[in-house]
Every structure is written in structure tokens, then in C-alpha cells.
């Protein structure tokens, strides 16, 4: 294992220290329990938007803390959901009197820990669970679909709604609408190595890729020979489009995401192909996001996320945001 770390035991804490140093104007980082909080929290009268999850997906979620997006993020150990006391601490630091919305990715651990926090919180707390990964069959025989790329879009859009003053019920309703309209899927060219494990989470041969991966180094649905970029993009986009389904005439946000180790040159290349495939289907890409925003450590690979937009979502997407990882309008 080659990583720029001092000690697997302290990697999350050490990275948080660097984050604090890098963004003193935006963030206050607390270490026990670990919470990344918007520098000007609590914002009076605003619904607090709080998320969290295992570390190793940076910039998710800490990189999205700031004006127009999250009030706080709760970073768990690498690939491990945070504990309820982190969430409780975030709620108490951020509640400005309008309650808190917890954005939870659909994993058993995340759901249970946020649920426990919700039960214990003294503020008014609601939570929404995002489950946008079409690679997982949503059946009685699974823990349901995972929350993946759609999380970034949800956090931006509902963050903007809270910033403009929407109340907790409105934030929940908007979240449900976004969750109902967003679908994602990912693939891996290489595995990642969890620091406290030291060996790759799975083994892939030089000519294999894994389709339908999550963001925790879990193996995917299918192992297939590496194809061309066009084949890869279409292997992700087809199930996404057919799932909702997205149809001709739909206006969408296309989010082309790197799993961490795939460089921008490949990501742009894939993005161009995806735009073409959507144009071929008569789907209009109105907004786009390209970059490493929800990652699996150093994994090489990508995911695609498609969100069906309406006018309000577009307005909220375009609204000012000022966080370490997303910034515009300010």
C-alpha cells in the first residue's frame, strides 16, 4: 500500500486537520466527535442541512459544507458510517431554530446511525434517504439501492432551498422530488485500498473491469473485459436511462464523476460520449458537473448520474454556493 499518510489509525483526523487549514474561512472542524461545520453556523432561521457518511469519498461530504449547501458533515472512519453522537453534535451546532434535515445515503449502517441520532435529538429533525444506484436491484432481497452520485446533486439543490429560506417540510418534499428523479451507476477499472486493511478491496486482472460498483470498494454486479470508453459509457447510461425512465424531451443534469484515480482527461472524454448518447435519445442536457466529487479513495473508474430537472431544480442548482469543492455565484 502506497499512500500519503502517517498512520492508518489517524488518517481521517489528519485529513480533517488539513481541510481545516486549507479552508479557515469556510469551515470549523471539530474532532471529538468529528464534525465539519460551516464557519458561520448556526444560521438563525435557516433549516440546517446535515449529511455524513464514511470517509474516503472526498470531497463528499465535508467539501460541500458552506453557504448554499451543507451546514455540517459527519465523517465516519474510512468507509464506515458515522456514529449518532457525531450527528447529534452537528445538529446541536447547526440548528438555527428551523430544525435540521439529515441527508442519509441508503446503507444499513448510515440509516441506523442517523436514525438513532434522530431519535435522540432535541431539535426538530427530519431525514431523507437517497438510493439512486440502479446497479442494485431494489427488492426484498437486498438492503435496497445504495445512495451514490445523486447525493451530491441533492445536497446542492436542497442546500440552496434551505439557504433561500424554505422550511423543513418544504426541504423534505423537495428532497423526495430530487430522489425520485435521479439515477446513477458506476464502474471500476481498479480497486481501492482501505488504509487500515492495506491490500486492495478486490482484485481485477489487467483486462477486466467491474460494472455496477458502489463507493466502498465492494465488488460490483458484473466483471467484464475492459472495453472502449464508448462501451463503458453506454454500459452505465443505458440502465440509468431505462430505469426512471428518462425520455425524449426530458431536461437533465448530467454528472460525470471520477472514482478518485481517473484523471480529468479521461473524464471529459467520457462526458463527451455521454452527452452524445443523450442527444441521440432526444434528452436535453441543461446542466452538467464533471469531476471527482464522490470517490472511493484512489479507485480508477467513473460513475454517471442523471437528474431529471424542472425549473425549480434548475434555479436551485444555479443558486450561489460557496464550499471547498463547489463554488459559484459568490
Amino acid at each position, binding site marked *: 500500500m502506497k499512500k500519503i499518510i502517517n498512520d492508518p489509525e489517524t488518517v481521517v483526523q489528519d485529513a480533517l486537520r488539513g481541510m481545516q487549514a486549507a479552508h479557515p474561512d469556510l469551515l470549523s472542524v471539530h474532532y471529538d*466527535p468529528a464534525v465539519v461545520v460551516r464557519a458561520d453556523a448556526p444560521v438563525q432561521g435557516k433549516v440546517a442541512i446535515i449529511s455524513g457518511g*464514511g470517509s474516503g469519498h472526498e470531497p463528499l461530504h465535508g467539501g460541500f459544507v458552506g453557504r448554499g449547501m451543507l451546514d455540517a458533515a459527519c465523517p*465516519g*472512519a*474510512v*468507509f*464506515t*458510517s*458515522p*456514529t*449518532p*453522537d457525531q450527528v447529534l453534535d452537528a445538529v446541536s451546532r447547526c440548528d438555527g431554530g428551523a430544525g435540521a434535515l439529515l441527508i442519509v445515503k441508503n*446503507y*444499513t*449502517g448510515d440509516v*441506523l*446511525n442517523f*436514525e*438513532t441520532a434522530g431519535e435522540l435529538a432535541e431539535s426538530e429533525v427530519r431525514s431523507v434517504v437517497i438510493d439512486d444506484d440502479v*446497479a*442494485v*436491484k431494489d427488492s*426484498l*432481497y*437486498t*438492503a435496497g439501492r*445504495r445512495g451514490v452520485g445523486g447525493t451530491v446533486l441533492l445536497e446542492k439543490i436542497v442546500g440552496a432551498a434551505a439557504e433561500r429560506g424554505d422550511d423543513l417540510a418544504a426541504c423534505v418534499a423537495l428532497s423526495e422530488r430530487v430522489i425520485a428523479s435521479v439515477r446513477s451507476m458506476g464502474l471500476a477499472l481498479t480497486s481501492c485500498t*482501505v488504509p*487500515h*486493511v492495506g491490500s486492495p*478491496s478486490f482484485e481485477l486482472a489487467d483486462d477486466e473491469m467491474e460494472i455496477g460498483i*458502489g463507493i*466502498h*470498494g*465492494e*465488488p460490483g*454486479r458484473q466483471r467484464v473485459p475492459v472495453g472502449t470508453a464508448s462501451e463503458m459509457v453506454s454500459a452505465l447510461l443505458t440502465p440509468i436511462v431505462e430505469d426512471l425512465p428518462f425520455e425524449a424531451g426530458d431536461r437533465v443534469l448530467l454528472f460525470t464523476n471520477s472514482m478518485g484515480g481517473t484523471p480529468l482527461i479521461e473524464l471529459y472524454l467520457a462526458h463527451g460520449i455521454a452527452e452524445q448518447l443523450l442527444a441521440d435519445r432526444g434528452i436535453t442536457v441543461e446542466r452538467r458537473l464533471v469531476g471527482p466529487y464522490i470517490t472511493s479513495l484512489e479507485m480508477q473508474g467513473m460513475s454517471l448520474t442523471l437528474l431529471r430537472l424542472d425549473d425549480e431544480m434548475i434555479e436551485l442548482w444555479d443558486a450561489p454556493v460557496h464550499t471547498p469543492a463547489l463554488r459559484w455565484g459568490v
Partner: protein
Amino acid sequence: MGCTAADVVAALRAATAVVQEHRDELVRLDQAIGDADHGENMKRGFTALLSRLDGEDLTTPGKVLKMVATTLISTVGGAAGPLYGTAFLRASAAVGDAAELDCEAVARALQAALDGVVARGKAVVGDKTMVDALTPAVAAASSVNGSVAAVLSAAADAAAEGAESTVPMVARKGRASYLGERSAGHLDPGARSTALLLRAFADAARGEGAAT
């Protein structure tokens, strides 16, 4: 013949050692069908626990179990944290303020733990989770009438078998369920850790209670 707060603390010390010893094994099991953190999560939780086992207020078994619950909930994370936390919380409630636990109290505590895990996680036997270890353990515990050590020993044996039974199962709960059929052929890490904990408790009880 009963089990005091000090006995529970001793059993937890033993459990901590076992979790630390088996940390890598649990990581490997979770690497195969999950996200490779179960061993690390359990080690983190029990290491935190160890530093609190000297607490002055740990005057009854129930207080010890409650402290275990809150410690695990705030340090383990993942699915295992809230599930084991709930298990110990319910066990604590089940034993109340008693200064010593007899074998029935222990069996009642195990039953309460199982009920808590099921209430939180909604898994049933056959879903390839810790429930597959805990369910037979509870059944065995309530069918034995003897020393605490005997109850725990029966529970541990049954849990071990229950854990083994997860190998061929296709997971329907937790992270392993994403793998579908690919989850078959692997031991469930949470079932394994449940079996390990019960074995540690049983061994500790036998050590303490050999003379009684």
C-alpha cells in the same frame, strides 16, 4: 453462583482481547462480501470500551451493559455499531438493577438483545447476518438449566454453528446483499463476531464459575 458487575467487566475484558485477536480475520471476511471494515470497527469499539471498564459507577451488571451499549454506539459506526449497541442496551434493560445475574437473567438478557437487533435491523434467520448466530444462541440458552457458565457455553456453541450456517446463504440484508448470488460461499462477518463474543463470555464465565 450468580454473575456480578465485576464478572461482567471481566467477561468484557476477555471479549476485547478476542476482538483484537480476530480483528484481521473479521476484516478479511468483510472484505470478501462487504467493505472490509467490520474487524476494524469492532476493534475500535472494544478498545474504547476497555478504557472505560474501570469506571467507578459500574456497580451493577445492568450499569456495565448500558455503558457498553453507549460506548459501542458512539465508537463502532457502520451497521454493527447500532446493532450491537441496541443489543447491549436491551440486555441492560432486561436485567434491571439486579446486583447478580442468575442463569435465567442471562437467558433473558440474550433474548432481549436478539429482539433489539431484530427490531433495529429487520433481519430474519436466513438473511446472512448476526441474527443467524444470535437466534440459535438464544434458543440454546433458554433450554439449558444450570450455571451461567453452562448457559453461555450452550449459547456460544449454538452461535458458532449458526455462524457457520451463513456460509451458503445469499445475503438479503446489509452490504453483502448488493452482491446477490456472489455473496454465497462466505461466512458473514457479523455472525462470526457474535459467535466470538459469546465464546469469550462463556470462557470467562467458566473461569470464574468453575468452583461454584
